[in-house]
């Protein structure tokens, strides 16, 4: 399925972060013709972990072992939260579809169960999440059981210290050890980047030499942790080779951005949308959208493939301040492309708490677009701004993904729900592919 400039797409997705990627993926899976505009910068920062919901209510810092229980509580107590507007079955379906697509694109995740998992981070904190890359799952088990375990890192990787992790765990994991190694061939290099090492490990020989360095250090270890750099495109193969070569469960530890798992996610999602026939304009930026009764005409800048795109529906997945979906001057937050009204605190004085880690979070992070039940952003009068404009992901109001630990969940579930709505709107109750 190829589209030329003149085509009218069923859906134009603006944004290529987690939410935009999920929307493009789900649209294509439902058989809608889809074009996606924007670069995937945001995903590079992601950790590889797919959060759904862990902390609610924020002020109490209550941590939930079961994300769907947390969502049920949220639905009762914060009905305006975007994730409170989606039923559990849909959330589950969306997550499964997303993770299945990643698996097919070479980035397998551990089977999604009912419970959240605790994952050790590179600084030694413990982070609750839902979807765990298969390369990290042995770490979840090790963290729960705390057997003798070896943590390995490499000279020159500045933001990762295995010793820090072991030291931070301290008495709570007495059988943890650390070892810093010289990555083969990097002797004179003062700074190493995880992505370079990940790429290097795709070379069979370098991999074998690295495994040989670790082998003599195993001792009584029953699991081995590495910074997340075991391969890039071929991470499955590299991870398997480490497990086979060392004869033990091997796990990766998520690191500071931009991280290898972020890069893998981006590559896998790009592959997933590409194989499903989504047209992409990676390098383009949308600077206008003009709606008429039937279609939207999207104006692009820096666009090698043409200046305009016409689509029957538009999904706005442009993110927040980092993504550039929202912009703020000294007094006011605005939506960056069409100037949709943004729900926000009355003055900048209220945007942020005086304490950075204030458990209730910063009010500015709950600013965003208000939507109706069909995921259509509202105009100033509270009505849908346009019948064929939809908004998904972190640009939505009444959520704080950083504090609730729901970033990917918010992106995936809202994208799924909006695309379902679009399919209904364009093709009636059934989706175009004929599935219910």
């Amino acid at each position, binding site marked *: 399925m190829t589209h030329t400039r003149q085509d009218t797409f069923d859906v134009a997705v603006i944004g290529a972060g987690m939410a935009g990627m999920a929307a493009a993926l789900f649209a294509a899976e439902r058989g809608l013709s889809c074009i996606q505009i924007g670069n995937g910068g945001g995903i590079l*920062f992601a*950790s590889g*972990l797919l959060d759904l919901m862990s*902390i609610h209510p924020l002020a*109490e*810092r*209550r*941590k*939930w*072992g*079961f994300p769907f*229980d*947390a969502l049920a509580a949220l639905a009762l107590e914060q009905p305006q939260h975007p994730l409170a507007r989606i039923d559990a079955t849909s959330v589950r379906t969306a997550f499964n579809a997303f993770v299945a697509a990643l698996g097919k694109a070479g980035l397998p995740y551990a089977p999604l169960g009912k*419970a*959240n998992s605790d994952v050790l*981070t590179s*600084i*030694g*904190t*413990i*982070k*609750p999440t839902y979807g765990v890359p298969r390369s990290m799952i042995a770490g979840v088990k090790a*963290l729960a059981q705390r057997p003798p375990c070896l943590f390995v890192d490499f000279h*020159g990787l*500045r*933001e*990762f*210290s295995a*010793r*820090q992790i072991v*030291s*931070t765990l*301290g008495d*709570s994991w007495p059988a943890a050890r650390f070892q810093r190694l010289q990555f083969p061939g990097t002797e004179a290099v*003062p*700074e190493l980047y995880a992505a370079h090492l990940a790429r290097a490990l795709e070379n069979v020989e370098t991999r074998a030499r690295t495994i040989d360095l670790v082998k003599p250090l195993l001792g009584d270890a029953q699991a081995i942790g590495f910074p997340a750099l075991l391969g890039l495109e071929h991470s499955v193969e590299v991870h398997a080779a480490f497990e086979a070569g060392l004869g033990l469960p091997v796990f990766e530890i998520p690191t*500071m*951005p931009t991280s290898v798992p972020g890069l893998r996610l981006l590559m896998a999602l790009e592959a997933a949308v590409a194989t499903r026939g989504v047209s992409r304009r990676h390098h383009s930026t949308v600077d206008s959208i003009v709606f008429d009764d039937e279609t939207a005409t999207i104006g692009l800048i820096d666009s090698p493939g043409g200046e305009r795109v016409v689509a029957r529906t538009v999904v706005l997945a442009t993110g927040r*301040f*980092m993504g*550039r979906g929202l912009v*703020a*001057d*000294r007094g006011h937050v605005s939506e960056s492309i069409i100037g949709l009204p943004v729900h926000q605190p009355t003055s*900048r*004085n209220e*945007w*942020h708490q*005086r*304490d*950075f*880690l204030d*458990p209730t979070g*910063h009010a*500015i*992070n709950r600013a965003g677009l208000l939507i109706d039940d069909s995921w259509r952003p509202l105009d100033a009068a509270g009505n849908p701004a346009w019948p064929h404009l939809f908004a998904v992901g972190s640009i939505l109001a009444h959520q704080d993904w*950083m*504090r609730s*630990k729901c*970033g990917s969940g918010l992106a995936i579930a809202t994208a799924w729900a909006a695309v379902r709505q679009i399919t209904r709107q364009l093709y009636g109750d059934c989706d175009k592919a004929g599935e219910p």
Partner: protein
Amino acid sequence: MANPSRIETQVLIIGGGVTGTALVRDLALRGVDCILVEKDDINAGASGRNHGLLHSGARYVAGDQEAAVECRVEGEILKRLASQTIQDTGGFFVAVEGDDERYIADFPSHCKRSGILVHRVDVAAARELEPALSPHTIAVFEVPDASIDPFRLSLESMAQARTLGARLMRRSRVIGFQREGRRIRAVQVRSMQLGEDVWIEAAQVVNAAGAWAREVALLAGASINMTYSKGTLLVTHGRLAQRVVNRLRPPGNADIMMPGGTVSIVGTTSTRVDSLDNIYPTTAEADLIVDEASRMLPALQTMRFIRAYSGVRPLVGSTGVADGRTASRGFALFDHDVDGIDNLATITGGKLTTCRLMAERAADLVCRRLGVAAPCLTAITQLPVAPECKWTEPGHAPREWMRTGQAETLLCECEMVSASAVDTIYAALVAAGDTPTLTDIGMRSRVGKGACQGAFCAVRAVAHLYQRGDFQAQRGLDEIIDFFAERWKGQHSVLWGEQLAQAELMEALHCGLFGEELRGDDMHGLCPPALNGKVSP
């Protein structure tokens, strides 16, 4: 605390700002044995929260000639003897449409009356030299203003004093005085880290506690009439001009822009406050500074600001000022005779620019009381360069990095702070018997001062210190949290535009991924499915 330890010295100095450190150096150079106690860290008070302008005096020529002359003389001394702490940028005084014509016309003669070199610069030529100046500029004068690094000044003064035998006790707060008739017998000092007290027995005590001088004097039973004025400053991302730019008008809000390294500092404001607690920049102050200063430098309207900070100026009232020893309206030296104490003095007020003079006057009083005849040497002695103190200077680290051939591991890419710089600073603190924190390192280097405000480099610095074994157990995580709590005070008032996106990234990383806000005893436990549902703290 059955038997708290006692320490003896000739002079105890309370407060480690530019005044206290200048004083300890002055006395040490005269051969007097001293201890300096500081409740937080060097320059934790106004000395670390000012504009860093080495005043030529021109700012005060119309209203306070005495202060103007004092600044000129002291500025010249520091430029000669502490040149490593100074960038001799020169300064412009700039008037824009609507500014008082009379003040402009009188300015050059007022400068000359105070002996300050001044010359008029053609507006077009000035705008060529400093393109950031407003098109509405109507008059420009050049004066010998400069920028000074108060951190380096204090650290190097302290470093020299130490080589001469003086002792520094950081994180040591004066909490009480033991009197015996008209004398202070001992001063009670609490270690903020250990919670333990020591008693320091000194022949003379000098209160150099800046805005806290009133509180400290009260503890000793002496009173000082003092009010507080809070001032806020904004730091831009990027340097606006080569020179200091002052507004040519009577001193008011937001009329100074100081360039320094890769940033500029704009301010200040002046608000009366009743208490020294909870001093942080507000959004209203930030807005006021942007709106007012952009009349001289319009680019400020669209400029990115990376942080703000506030300091408190002590305003010393006239009642209670002891006698003729009050050197000038700029600063105040109290001998506390009227309070019935013979061995306490207070030196407060004044300016960074005049700290050497303030120290000299206080040291003269102390030496007279001690019967020490040695003269003051600070007006003729070079301030030695201390290698561990050079990292505070913006631009130093990149130069060093270029020089060493880039074979160094950088922990901070915004400001190019290398691992070895952190090691040097850490080692110097340890050698002095300290337990360095991440915040200490931040104060002595550029860590956390670039656009990312530490989001990345703080993590790297902590990983580096864990790897060396310097940090253990939960300590590094506590330090990251303290470091950001401190930095945040200066950030939240300037978060709009690009810097708001930066703050979002910082939170995505530190809360979204690392979950630092969840740390604490209750949250550190795991949440296995076996617990069947929610875990409440």
